[in-house]
C-alpha cells in the first residue's frame, strides 16, 4: 500500500503568534516553527497501516517555505520513506481553495497512491476542511476526523468523531482520510530513525516542477483577502487571594458583585 501523508509546518502554539502588519499573513519570523502536532498523528497512522500490512511506502507531501524541511525531516525520522516538498515564494499568502488545488497537483506527482492521510485541522488556521477539499478535487471519497481507521482489502473504514457524535464511514480506495487528535500517540524518532532520515529522498519542487501556474496561487490571486488585522489588548489579571478557609465564599461575593449570581 502506498500512503501519502500531508504535513504542514506551523508556528509553535507555545509561542506567541503574530500577524504581519504589511499583508496580514502569519509572521513567521517572530515564531518558532514546528511540524503541526496533528500531522505527527497522520504520519503515525500511515506507519501503523504500513506495519500492519507488512509492506508499503509512506510518502510525505508538504507545501511551505524552505524551513518546512524540518517538519519533513521529523516525519522521515519517524519512519516515512520519502518526501515531496513544494517550496516557492509565489505560494505565500495562498487561500484555502488555492492551497487545496496546489496540494492536489502535488499529490498528483506521486504515482499510484492508495490513501492520503492528513490531520483534521491545522493549529494555525480555522478552515479545518482542506483534506475534504483535496478529496473533492481528486474525485475520491473523504473520510474525515477519524479517531479509528482500518483498511481491509480495498475498503477503508473509519470512526469519525466530532461534536455531533460518532459516524461510521466506509469507502473504496483510493481515498483521503483525516485523523483526529485522539487517533493515536505519535512515536518519537529513534536515533537510528534520525540517522536514516538524512539519506531518504526528498523531491524538492518549485511551482513549475509541480506543474502549477503562477496565477493559481499566492496572495495577489487569492479568492479571499484579509483587509485589516489588529491584536486585541491582552486581558489584565484581576484580583488574586489566597484561600484562608473562605475562598468559596469570596468567589460567591465577587460573583454577586458582578451580578453573575
Amino acid at each position, binding site marked *: 500500500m502506498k500512503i501519502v501523508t500531508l504535513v504542514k509546518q506551523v508556528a509553535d*502554539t*507555545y509561542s506567541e*503568534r503574530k*500577524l504581519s502588519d504589511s499583508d496580514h499573513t502569519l509572521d513567521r519570523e517572530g515564531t518558532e516553527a514546528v511540524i503541526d502536532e496533528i500531522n505527527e498523528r497522520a504520519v503515525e497512522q500511515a506507519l501503523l497501516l504500513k506495519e500492519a500490512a507488512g509492506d508499503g511506502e509512506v510518502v510525505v507531501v508538504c507545501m511551505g517555505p524552505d524551513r518546512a524541511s524540518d517538519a519533513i525531516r521529523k516525519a522521515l525520522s519517524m519512519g516515512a520513506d520519502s518526501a515531496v516538498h513544494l517550496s516557492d515564494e509565489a505560494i505565500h499568502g495562498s*487561500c484555502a*481553495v488555492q492551497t*487545496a*488545488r496546489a496540494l492536489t497537483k502535488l499529490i498528483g506527482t506521486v504515482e499510484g497512491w492508495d490513501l492520503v492521510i492528513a490531520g*483534521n485541522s491545522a493549529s494555525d*488556521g*480555522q*478552515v*479545518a*476542511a482542506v483534506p*475534504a*477539499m483535496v*478529496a*473533492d478535487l481528486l*474525485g475520491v*471519497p*473523504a473520510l*474525515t*476526523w477519524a479517531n479509528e481507521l482500518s483498511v481491509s482489502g480495498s475498503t477503508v*473504514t473509519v470512526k469519525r468523531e*466530532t*461534536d*455531533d*457524535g*460518532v*459516524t*461510521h464511514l*466506509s*469507502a*473504496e480506495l483510493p481515498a483521503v482520510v483525516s485523523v483526529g*487528535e485522539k487517533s493515536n500517540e505519535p512515536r518519537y524518532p529513534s536515533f537510528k530513525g534520525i540517522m536514516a532520515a538524512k539519506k531518504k529522498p526528498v523531491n524538492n519542487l518549485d511551482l513549475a516542477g509541480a506543474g502549477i501556474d503562477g496565477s493559481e496561487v499566492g496572495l495577489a490571486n*487569492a*479568492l*479571499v483577502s*484579509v*483587509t*485589516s*488585522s*489588529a*491584536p*486585541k489588548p491582552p*486581558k489584565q*489579571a*484581576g*484580583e*488574586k487571594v*489566597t484561600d484562608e478557609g*473562605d*475562598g*468559596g*465564599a*469570596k*468567589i*460567591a461575593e*465577587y460573583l454577586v458583585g458582578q451580578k*453573575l449570581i
Partner: protein
Amino acid sequence: MAEVLVLVDHVDGEIKKTTYELLTAAKALGSPSAVVVGGAGAADKLADGLTEHGADKIYAAETDSTDFLAPEVAVLESLIGSAAGVLISASANGKEVAGRLAVRTGSGLLSDVVGVTGDGVQHSIFGGAYTAEAKANTEHPVITVRPGAIDIEASAGAGARESVEVPAASGRQATVTGREPIQGGSRPELTEATVIVSGGRGVGSAEDFTVVEGLADSLGAAVGASRAAVDSGYYPPQFQVGQTGKSVSPQLYIALGISGAIQHRAGMQTSKTIVAVNKDEEAPIFEVADFGIVGDLFKVAPQLQDEVTKRKG
C-alpha cells in the same frame, strides 16, 4: 434583493440553534433562503421555526442517500448560481461542506467568522489574540460562521416553500454505515452555555469530576475539561476546551485545577469573566483571571457550591 443560502443544521428532526444565528447573519447580506437537506418530511417539521427566524424561502431537498455530506454539497452547488452568498455553521460537518462547495464552484471560502456585514466578515484568530477583517474576491462566497458568535434576532420571513432535486453525487463518496449521536444529557451545550465550569488535571480522577459537575449544576452551567483531564480519562473528549477542543466565550468561566497553558487559554480567554482556583499561585491561568483563589479546589468548589445554592434557596 439577492438571496442568501443558509444550510439548515438539524439532527433527528431537531433544529440546531446555530441555524437561527445563520438566518440572523444572512439578513445583513440579502434575503435568507433556508436549505433543508434531509429525509422525507424533514423540512415540514422545521418550517415554522425557520420562517419565524427570517427565512423568506425554504428549499426542501429530500433524500435517503447514505453518501456522506455529498447531498448537502450537491444541493448547494445547484442553487448557488443566483445567490449572493452561502452561510453554513462552522461545525466539523459544516466546514467540510463549505470547503467542498468552494472548490467546486470557485468561490472564496471565509471560514469560522464571528461577524458578517455587507462589506465583509470578521474573524477572531489565535484564540482571540487577533481580530481581522476579510472579504471574498469572487461571486457567491461560502462563509462558515462560528456557533454562538451571532445574537439571534427573530423577525419573520415569507417562508415560501420550494422542493428541489438532490443531484446525483459527482465522484465516489464515503458511505455512512452507522451513527451514534452524542447523548446531550441535561446540561447546556458548551458552545451555547452562559456559564462553564471546567476541570483540569488538578481534579485528579474521573470520580472526583463530580466536584466540577456539582458546582456546574448549582450554577446551571456546562462542564468543560482541559486536554490533560481528557487525556487522563477523567472526562470525555467532546468536553475539551482549547486550541484543539471547543472555543467558548461564556459570561462566566470557572477554571478548577487548570494551569492555563496557552492552548487552553486559546479556547476560553474571550470569556467575559474568568474565575480560577489553583493551588499554585504562579499558575498562568491567574494572568487571565478576573478573580483568582490560590487554594485547594476540593475545599473551594464545594464551599462555592453551597453559597450558590444558599442564595438560590
